[in-house]
């Protein structure tokens, strides 16, 4: 599974340009899914399971897209100005390398600041692709790039850009592989454009019209020096989301997840996130409303070019989700 993770995180797929990730996912699951389709927003939707009496139509969503940048201007000397796609912060840009969809690579640096204590604004940053003039520059306005950083295997801990949310994409792929049978009608949605506002999941959920839904996504962890105050830590199991800024998870879904984890003796944590949002919000508000929740992978340094997860949490997330889908669901 580590090799799958590596291939996924090293693929370039900023929001709106998920096709390389989509192709990779499709190849991985095409022999294990009953049906695969791509909708108007580019979501890859795979169905699995043999609905039995008492089985439910369940939608799972893990987003394929990652944060990135988009070129806005190439100046006379060949420097590329850019703006963000999703929640990129200027302080993680300086010195970063980026890779455009075309394969062109470059580095980000910035204008001279009045003081070293200051942080660049995006208007003060630029990408240097080694060009000497506008004519010489292989990048044009509207070209999209993602951060460029190789996968790092530290044993239990794995580091990469785009762990958010390829790690969950890997989890869903692994679930598809391991889920031998399900009494439920399960739709695995590999969604697009989550980082710019849950756009893919919104329309995918409308199309799937699920009875229960949950997202699989990363969440913050509270276990770094002088970091945020949060109960989740790396290595203590996948997190069952209770709330984030955009969602109050349906308590029935939370009970279902916790109950299943306890029955199966799978370690888990409770996630109370004071920020963020996931595809679960989009699912919850679809049509007449859908009971929704989220299984989260605790992750350090989210939206930096080096995001860290614990591989044991990943494996336990797969176990938990397989267990959730293997039995008829009775939300109460």
């Amino acid at each position, binding site marked *: 599974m580590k090799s799958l993770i590596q291939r996924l995180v090293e693929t370039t797929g900023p929001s709106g340009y998920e096709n390389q990730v989509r192709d990779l996912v499709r190849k991985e699951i095409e022999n294990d899914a009953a049906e695969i389709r791509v909708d*108007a927003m580019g979501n890859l939707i795979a169905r699995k399971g043999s609905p039995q009496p008492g089985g439910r139509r369940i939608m799972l969503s893990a987003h394929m897209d990652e944060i990135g940048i988009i070129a806005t201007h190439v100046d006379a000397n060949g420097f590329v100005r850019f703006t963000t796609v999703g929640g990129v912060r200027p302080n993680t840009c300086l010195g970063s390398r980026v890779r455009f969809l075309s394969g062109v690579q470059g580095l980000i640096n910035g204008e001279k600041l009045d003081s070293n204590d200051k942080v660049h604004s995006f208007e003060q940053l630029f990408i240097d692709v080694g060009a000497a003039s506008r004519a010489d520059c292989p990048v044009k306005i509207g070209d999209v790039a993602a951060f460029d950083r190789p996968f790092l295997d530290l044993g239990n801990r794995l580091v990469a850009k785009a762990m958010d949310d390829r790690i969950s994409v890997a989890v869903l792929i692994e679930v598809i592989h391991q889920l031998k049978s399900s009494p439920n009608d399960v739709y695995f949605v590999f969604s697009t454009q989550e980082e710019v506002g849950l756009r893919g999941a919104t329309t995918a959920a409308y199309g799937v019209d699920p009875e229960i839904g949950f997202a699989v996504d990363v969440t913050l962890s509270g276990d770094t020096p002088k970091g945020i105050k949060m109960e989740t830590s790396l290595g203590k199991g996948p997190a069952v989301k209770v709330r984030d800024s955009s969602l109050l998870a349906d308590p029935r879904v939370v009970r279902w997840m916790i109950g299943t984890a306890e029955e199966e003796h799978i370690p888990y944590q409770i996630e109370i996130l004071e920020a963020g949002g996931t595809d679960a919000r989009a699912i919850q508000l679809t049509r007449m409303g859908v009971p929704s929740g989220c299984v989260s992978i605790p992750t350090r340094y989210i939206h930096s070019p080096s995001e860290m997860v614990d591989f044991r949490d990943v494996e336990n997330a797969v176990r938990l989700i397989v267990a959730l889908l293997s039995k008829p669901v009775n939300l109460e």
Partner: protein
Amino acid sequence: MSPQDRTPLAESLVGDAQIRLLERLSNAAAVSGDEGEVRRIVLEEIRPLADEIRVDSLGNILAAHHAGRENAPRVMLAAHMDEIGFMIVGDDEDGLYRFDAVGGIDPRILPGKAVLVGESRIPGVIGARPIHMTTTEERRKTIPLDSLRIDLGPGGEGKAKPGDRAVFATTFQRLGSSVFGKALDNRLGVATVIELLRHAPANIELLAAFTVQEEIGARGARVAAYALHPDAAIAVDSTPAYDLPTWDQTENALYNTHLGAGPAIYIADGGTLADSRWVNHLIAAAGERGIPYQIRQPGRGGTDASAIQRQREGVPVISVSVPGRYAHTPGGIARIEDWQNTIALLSAGLEALPAGLFQPAA
């Protein structure tokens, strides 16, 4: 194709009649939520052009021009009718009224402007303290909107009431190769979609939506797209051209678009990542017909496309805008040539639309 070869195509699309229509549209008042005046002009214009017309409960006009064949793709063209403006919120007596902004208005542009209030277009002014009474320190501060009043004159007591809308009292005019007027954002788009209905191609089911309340969150387009349920959509709007000199004469890297460089094709804005099939198709169509175009600088802002894209199971969308300077101020400026080329580009793009371009991948 040489530039000389291109001009006739575009010029045939915008003549005096089109400019006159734009003039009527620009001078009409249609603050978000009160679009009746523009709606009536549009209805009058499109009645002979569309096969079906209805007005929905929010005030959107939904019109269809049927395709000349079966199973043609259903393409929605959306142009918002509404404009930024004001609403009277309080009566201070003596013909003075408190007001608030509807849509994004920079309070720095308000003092010293003439406005028209209510359906009967009562003239009023937004004054400012005489410079003689101000201090240097005071002049460095923006006059907050809540200290400004709309003044109808001392006899204006009772002539307006809370809830009345007001717009800048700007009269449309031609300035050389440009047009000047209020609300060119988005009367240019409205006029463009009217022209596209006039020249509707037979290969598509053209669904024209003249939408309401774009300026306060693309609310009209949302329900319009749900109702029309299109296979694909284009938001036709006007986008800012910030192609002005910078204060220190350095290269302007934040121009958004340039006047005179052709229609602006969107790749990304604050609300939408354009469907790349649309982007590639329109660029190819422009190339084939020799129509100039520009890529709008990716960045913030948004159009009806964001709301349309998210309806039902999702709609492949793009925005194409006529570049215009000084949107959301008393008067904007746009080049007639850019408008012509916008109509030409959309027309060419729709005519050449492959039937299966947006069919979902299996």
